[in-house]
């Protein structure tokens, strides 16, 4: 393999005030291969890609494309060097058509007027070549997430990209859409395109990659291939220590049904039926996982249980208390704890200090008062205990919560919720966007609660998380629970199929 790499980045170093984002990173991609960049949040993947795309300038190091030094100082010059990027958050104008979006920002042969017919023709050519199947004349807002992503890929290919960067492309896709995407990417590499794949979903990385480079704290910690490694090893390279991907679950006897949902129907924000006749029991000492692609009613169901949304039909009970359309305070009084999906929107007050967020649900407890006023000594002691017990990393107890990392905010929310000694816990996407270490910890805490006889309902899009934690798995599709499977008889394939409505 003495051929010149398509891209080689040599000894890239980039510092931000107080942070070494890239530390002497070298990385290359050959034509026709998928090279994965793996690392936790803040490991330096995005910085490296932003340097490649001309959004940042490195402090030192050089970028070579096809063997020649390339000075990339803007996205425009990156595109001129035939580098394309598919961002995690799509850069599309929803009200414009596919062709108009693709043509956006490109010079037209007709001067001021865009030659959309020519653009459409070329789009069809590209879609046929790679099986992208996109109608150039359709408006973006009518497309599914997977289709929008294909438009982004077409945009890059239209600009003759030879090197394509995909930033967490599978985060928003169903398992079936992921398979389709991988087929497309394989076709592109067969045609000689080089692909940089950024992900933290280990099984996908192992499935798609030719080579894998792992970053940690801004530096390369290793390079490997799928043949030479496994999930466990990759995770440990990312974290830098031994990790448990799936927590040990002791055998626990399933107790009585604590949370009981009967024929629950809920309308979504747009007035359409979001949750359709859902019935489900969660027993003491078990974790029930709700699997499903987001947007299939999980959020509405969770909000209904938490008292944040009214059900149009059916009933919600905890033990013997009817909590149908009860207020959040009433639901909590019945022994309910809630770890919401969007932690900065529903879980914590960003401007509040760490200790204030730890007090959010029990600020009225008389033990924290002296007369009518707060007893700050007691509150500090309480916060310090929770911070220590749940190893929330924070400079001080009065640090504004929004400055903490996602994983630490999640641990803070977990600390607060679990400290209320609940009988039922609803945890929605408990480890989304959280680093492996924090996720490991959060999982172990949920398993501990299960051992203590708490009934846990966990909503997650992450099949690894569902398979690793749940005792029973309910798959949600189009507002309905399409199947409930015992963990022992569940396979990734069967779940994936059910999640796609099959």
């Amino acid at each position: 393999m003495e051929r010149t790499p398509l891209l080689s980045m040599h000894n890239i170093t980039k510092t931000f005030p107080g942070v070494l984002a890239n530390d002497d990173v070298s990385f290359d991609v050959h034509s026709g291969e998928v090279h994965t960049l793996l690392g936790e949040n803040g490991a330096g993947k995005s910085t490296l890609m932003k340097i490649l795309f001309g959004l940042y300038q490195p402090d030192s190091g050089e970028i070579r494309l096809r063997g020649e030094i390339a000075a990339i100082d803007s996205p425009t010059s990156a595109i001129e060097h035939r580098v394309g990027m598919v961002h995690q958050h799509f850069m599309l104008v929803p009200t414009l058509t596919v062709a108009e979006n693709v043509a956006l920002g490109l010079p037209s042969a007709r001067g001021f007027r865009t030659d959309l017919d020519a653009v459409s023709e070329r789009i069809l050519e590209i879609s046929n070549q790679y099986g992208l199947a996109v109608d150039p004349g359709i408006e973006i807002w009518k497309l599914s997430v997977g289709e929008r992503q294909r438009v982004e890929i077409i945009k890059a290919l239209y600009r003759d990209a030879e090197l394509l960067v995909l930033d967490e492309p599978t985060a928003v896709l169903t398992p079936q859409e992921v398979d389709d995407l991988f087929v497309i990417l394989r076709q592109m590499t067969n045609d000689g395109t080089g692909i940089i794949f950024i992900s933290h979903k280990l099984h996908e990385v192992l499935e798609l990659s030719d080579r894998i480079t792992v970053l940690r704290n801004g530096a390369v910690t290793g390079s490997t291939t799928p043949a030479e490694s496994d999930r466990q090893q990759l995770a440990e390279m990312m974290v830098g220590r031994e990790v448990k991907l799936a927590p040990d679950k002791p055998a626990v006897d399933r107790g009585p049904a604590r949370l009981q949902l009967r024929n629950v129907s809920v309308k979504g924000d747009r007035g359409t039926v979001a949750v359709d006749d859902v019935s489900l029991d969660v027993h003491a000492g078990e974790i029930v996982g709700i699997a499903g692609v987001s947007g299939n009613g999980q959020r509405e169901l969770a909000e209904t249980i938490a008292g944040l949304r009214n059900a149009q039909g059916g009933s919600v009970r905890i033990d013997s208390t009817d909590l149908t359309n009860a207020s959040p305070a009433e639901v909590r009084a019945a022994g309910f704890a809630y770890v919401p999906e969007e932690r900065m929107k529903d879980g914590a007050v960003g401007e509040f200090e760490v200790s204030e967020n730890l007090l959010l649900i029990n600020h009225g407890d008389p033990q924290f008062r002296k007369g009518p006023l707060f007893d700050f000594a007691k509150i500090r002691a309480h916060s310090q205990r929770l911070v220590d017990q749940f190893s929330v990393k924070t400079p001080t107890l009065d640090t504004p919560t929004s400055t903490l990392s996602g994983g630490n905010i999640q641990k803070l929310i977990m600390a607060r919720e679990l400290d209320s000694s609940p009988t039922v816990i609803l945890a929605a996407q408990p480890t989304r966007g959280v680093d492996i270490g924090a996720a490991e910890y959060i999982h172990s805490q949920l398993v501990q609660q299960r051992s203590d006889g708490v009934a846990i309902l966990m909503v997650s899009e992450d099949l690894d998380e569902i398979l690793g934690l749940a005792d029973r798995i309910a798959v949600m599709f189009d507002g309905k629970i399409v199947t409930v499977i015992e963990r022992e008889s569940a396979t990734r394939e069967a779940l994936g199929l059910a999640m796609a409505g099959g």
Partner: protein
Amino acid sequence: MKRLAGGVVPLGAAFLAFLLGALMIIALGASPADGLAAMFDGAFGTTDRIAATAVRATPLLLVGAGITIAFRASVINIGGEGQIIAGALLSTSVALAIPDTPRIALIPIVVLAGLIGGGIWGAIPGVLKAYASVNEILSTVMLNIVAIQLMNFLLRGPLIDPIEVGTSRIPQTQRLTDNAALPTLVEGSRLHLGVPIAIVAAIIVYLILFRTPFGFRLRAVGHNPDAARAAGISVEKNIVSALSLSGALSGLAGVILVFGSESLRLVTDGGSAGFTGSAGFNGIVTALFGGLHPLWTIPSSFLFGSLLTGATELQRELQIPNALAIALNGLIVLFVVSSDRVRGWLDTRLDRSMKARVEE
């Protein structure tokens, strides 16, 4: 670090406003140094003047303290004028109904009446916002006009001084009995009980906001209603509470404007400014200048109070129209409000550098 940015910005705004004020004095053909000296002399030159400044500051402080409650709960209360009038009307009516009550009982009663009057006037937009999603900026402003017309109606009809009925029909109430007057603190000066009442009120507001579960809920709702709701805090109830309490403090300002005045009666000139001196609006400025902190609102109100008393002296000594004070007031508003953007920018910068340090 953050506290520093919070203090530097309003002081910078005041400095810029005074700089422009100096230019205006030059444009009017006087020396800015003389002008500043005259204003300072007018505000603090004698014990009497200091007392007058404190008295002018009182309604600003009360309205401002109320505004901090509302704004901390993310409710914009522009209804200070109406709430002052509502408090004044209710307390004056009560005082007129029980004229012979001894002072020791009458004063607490009228204070309570003022709190209730202003509180109701604040609760109305609160209920409308919480349960019918009516924008509180619009409803509070409109209720100002309703309050003014209510005052005009009452003072021209049911509450008019009987002496005026057959004569000039000046729309004013009867003069209240002397036991209704707020006792003066220093013999011979205008410094009355209203001043310490306002300061104590600001301190109580501070304690409520930052040291009680009730204030905790208000602030949680103000910062993030979604998280507050999910935690079991009622957003609706707290919106109503914030506006009611905010209105109650303005209502108390109305009490002090009537019962601390030398005429001891409520008079209307058809609008609100004649009675309130626009304290309902200037109180907002006072609160913003105080960084929406009830304790900082105390010095802030004295600054604006001194501006008002100082302007009188400026007019007398240099023949500069006291509209300059209004202009200065306006300039400070302009700079403080636009500096909110500066402050926001500073805050995000500081947050970011803090975040970088944490991630390190």
